[in-house]
């Protein structure tokens, strides 16, 4: 990665909890999300789906729908094929997903038709009248089902539902021995991102091109997908990406944007599709995972080997899920030094919702298994689980994954700090248990971000940065960086994003990359502007506004520069590139369990992340604590429930519970480790996912500590914990 030349001491603005850019609009209702935009003469779209997981589409009869005044079209695969000559397929990894179901519906929720009508009511009502004749086909929606010898194949032209294998090994696990071997199987169910903003899409003809509005994390990737399926030059595809109302990975990649684009071009009018929450549940989810792990430890507490097989159940189309499997699993051994390790992961297709990125990107699943197994190893050795972890933890510079970036932090500091926060060595109150777990995730493996900085004639500045600000506060820290480098008040900086026709290219907003990659681009551009300013002003040594007066004189104008941050692909690396940095987190909890109900009360939740350097400490805390609470959601509450036909039965907010203000730990103790050792501005690292990674493992360890029961299938819902307690008591 091209970094910044030389470490400079952060200015006084860095680390400060400056006011959130865009904050005021968020508390007045003025901030506009995609569904808040309306275009003149727009049509409303409603999707038509089938009540089965897998079906052959025999015929689609639009007669009754089209008979309703105000219905403009019932759009199907035939319309796409008529427009494009064939069914275009797209996806971030494989071009496998059709614009709309063609021939087969491959999962519950797969749209087979889309109605466009003059009003939203009419679209919804008339969509129910579309008659789809179909033949229900056998479906697979479990790991075992998808792997069975006689399993129906999800994608045509394949011989197995295993899409890909991801194998990594070092040392010789097959020959390795240990004085204690702990072997278990763990299960992590399907959960969903549940952004409070349901996905929304608008498309409109735009001269000789197309304009699309989407609550998308990767507007430039979407632009590329649209250009390809529509056979348009990139310059004729304009993606507007207003700030997403929460994304969590679920809004990384194209979903129905190609569909609404084809509809808008056919109808010659703007079309809008705003999903219901139920529809988002069948649009995005996390992979279900089953992990078998064998952990070899010697009696003195040194790790000998670890052997992992992880099966990730992805959906009917790959989306980014196979990458989730590869990137999530390769670092599955955690932040430890293992003499020998083997990780074998598989992405397995099924007739289910295409799974995609979700905060943690495949790591929370494998962490659940590996950290739980390490706790079990400690208990069986009679060792303190904290001590066992510290004994094997990678130190700065250790190549703990031999082919990847070396340990880039003082991780032991975080572990000791979390132990201190939870009071690990203090006596436990009656009935309480404690658990600790560590999490690690690889940051981005490739990256390319450009930022344009314009210093205007009154010493205010514009930053153009294509990062999607979906709640993490990216624009705020870019304003801080620019203001700090230019020496102007942060209130005089505006940050522009969300329009591919205006803002320069950014590869993506994911993997907690933006502080580092876009941050480096913003700082680089700002420093170049500053250098030009000083040269034009004939020297430094005056306040910035005075320099601007001298430099721009009576003509006015501006000084601008483009900054670039690049991390190139490494073709010989198993992941296509090494980690730009690691997100490291240590989490510890103290809880009690109601043995009558199985209900868990978390009394204390401590989380410590190695963030390198906080650019905005308040935002860091918000991200860290938010990730921790989101982790408690999948730990204690969340899971999809399927019926025998592969339909999800708990769609929506009533039957799928996420944490509320009544489900919080009584105390949340969060802290950071800041040694300025990251590759981003002033030594920053990315940090938005770490605190989610080890939550389930820490909570399960504490439940075990409090009650003696071991739960290896998430969630640790009252029901599951209650059953485990009954089993413990021989009932």
């Amino acid at each position: 990665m091209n970094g910044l030349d030389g470490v400079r001491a952060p200015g006084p603005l860095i680390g400060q909890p400056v006011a959130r850019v865009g904050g005021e609009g968020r508390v007045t209702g003025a901030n506009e999300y995609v569904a808040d935009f309306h275009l003149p003469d727009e049509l409303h779209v409603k999707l038509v789906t089938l009540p089965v997981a897998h079906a052959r589409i025999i015929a689609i009869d639009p007669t009754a729908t089209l008979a309703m005044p105000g219905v403009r079209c019932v759009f199907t695969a035939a319309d796409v094929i008529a427009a494009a000559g064939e069914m275009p397929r797209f996806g971030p990894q494989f071009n496998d997903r059709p614009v709309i179901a063609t021939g087969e519906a491959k999962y519950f929720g797969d749209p087979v038709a889309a109605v466009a009508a003059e009003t939203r009511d009419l679209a919804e009502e008339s969509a129910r009248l579309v008659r789809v004749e179909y033949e229900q086909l056998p479906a697979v929606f479990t790991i075992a089902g998808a792997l069975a010898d006689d399993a129906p194949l999800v994608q045509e032209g394949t011989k197995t539902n295993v899409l890909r294998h991801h194998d990594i090994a070092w040392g010789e696990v097959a020959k390795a021995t240990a004085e204690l071997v702990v072997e278990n199987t763990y299960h992590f169910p399907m959960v969903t991102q549940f952004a409070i903003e349901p996905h929304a899409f608008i498309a409109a003809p735009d001269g000789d091109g197309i304009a699309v509005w989407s609550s998308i994390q990767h507007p430039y990737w979407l632009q590329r997908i649209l250009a390809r399926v529509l056979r348009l030059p990139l310059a004729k595809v304009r993606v507007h990406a207003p700030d997403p109302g929460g994304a969590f990975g679920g809004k990384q990649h194209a979903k129905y944007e190609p569909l609404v684009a084809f509809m808008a071009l056919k109808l010659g009018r703007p079309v809008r599709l705003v999903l219901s929450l139920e529809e988002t549940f069948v649009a995005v989810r996390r992979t279900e995972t089953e992990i078998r792990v064998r952990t070899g430890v010697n009696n003195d507490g040194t790790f000998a080997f670890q052997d992992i097989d992880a099966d990730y159940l992805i959906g009917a189309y790959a989306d980014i899920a196979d990458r989730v499997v590869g990137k999530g699993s390769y670092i599955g051994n955690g932040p430890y030094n293992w003499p020998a390790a083997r990780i074998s992961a598989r992405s397995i297709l099924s007739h289910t919702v295409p799974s995609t990125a979700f905060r943690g990107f495949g790591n929370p699943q494998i962490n659940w298994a590996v950290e739980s197994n390490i706790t079990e190893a400690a208990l069986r050795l009679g060792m303190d689980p904290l001590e066992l972890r510290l004994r094997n933890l990678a130190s700065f510079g250790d190549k703990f994954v031999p082919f990847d970036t070396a340990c880039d932090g003082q991780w032991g500091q975080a572990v000791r700090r979390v132990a201190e926060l939870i009071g690990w060595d203090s006596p436990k109150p009656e009935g309480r248990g404690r658990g600790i777990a560590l999490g690690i995730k690889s940051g981005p493996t490739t990256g390319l971000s450009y930022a344009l900085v314009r210093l205007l004639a009154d010493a205010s500045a514009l930053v153009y940065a294509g990062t999607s600000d979906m709640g993490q506060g990216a624009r705020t820290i870019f304003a801080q960086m620019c203001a700090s480098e230019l020496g102007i008040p942060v209130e005089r900086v505006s940050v522009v994003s969300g329009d591919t026709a205006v803002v320069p290219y950014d590869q993506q907003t994911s993997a907690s990359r933006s502080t580092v990659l876009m941050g480096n681009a913003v700082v680089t551009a700002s420093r170049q502007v500053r250098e030009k300013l000083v040269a034009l002003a004939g020297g430094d040594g005056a306040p910035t506004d005075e320099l601007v007066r001298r430099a721009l004189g009576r003509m006015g104008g501006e000084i601008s520069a483009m900054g670039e941050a690049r991390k190139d692909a490494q073709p010989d690396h198993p992941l296509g590139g090494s980690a730009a940095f690691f997100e490291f987190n240590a989490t510890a909890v103290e809880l009690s369990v109601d043995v009558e109900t199985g209900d868990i009360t978390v009394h204390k939740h401590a989380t410590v992340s190695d963030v390198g350097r906080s650019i905005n400490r308040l935002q860091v805390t918000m991200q860290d604590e938010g990730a921790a609470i989101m982790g408690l959601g999948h730990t204690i509450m969340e899971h999809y429930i399927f019926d025998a036909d592969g339909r999800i039965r708990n769609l929506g907010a009533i039957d799928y519970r996420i944490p509320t203000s009544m489900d919080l730990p009584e105390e949340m103790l969060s802290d950071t480790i800041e040694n300025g050792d990251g590759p981003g501005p002033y030594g920053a690292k990315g940090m938005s996912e770490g605190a989610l990674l080890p939550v389930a493992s820490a909570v399960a360890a504490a439940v075990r500590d409090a009650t003696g029961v071991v739960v290896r299938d998430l969630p640790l819902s009252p029901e599951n914990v209650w059953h485990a307690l009954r089993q413990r008591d021989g009932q």
Partner: protein
Amino acid sequence: MTMRINLTLNGRPRTFSVQEHHTLLDALRDDLGLTGTKECCLVGECGACTVRLNDRIVDSCLVLAAEADGGDVVTVEGLAPEPGRLSPLQSAFLEKGAVQCGFCIPGQLMAGDDILRRYEHPTRHDIEEGLAGNLCRCACYYQIVEAVEAAAHGRAHEETQLVESAVVREMPPHVVDQ
């Protein structure tokens, strides 16, 4: 079938026509163009569409527009005392770090505002319970609770000062308590 509705919206009388089956949420967003109130679950669970109707807050997705006829409706757009100024609660949300993506925030603010109206000195439990119907997936819950607490404390502080000085003055634009 459409029907004519008269109501007071954020202090202003409004008259409009609405489909009789449309909810108050539909009317606010689609007929009146006030998009600050958000749509998510449509079953009264997430709280993103929370508005004030007469003397209580409601999930506007569960209330027919017709039910608001003749009523007094306050939405997030009506919380600020005047354009360009924020209410103490709105300021507290920003200062405490209660706002991330922001999508749930209009509903959280309406629920927080209701807590401040119902309790002179709300306890932490009062606040947590008062916010229980408002989901935040960014999970800024601690910060939201702190913001409501801060606004309540700021108000108490302000009242003390009013009594002491016996001079009426404007509420400060920012809550500085804590």
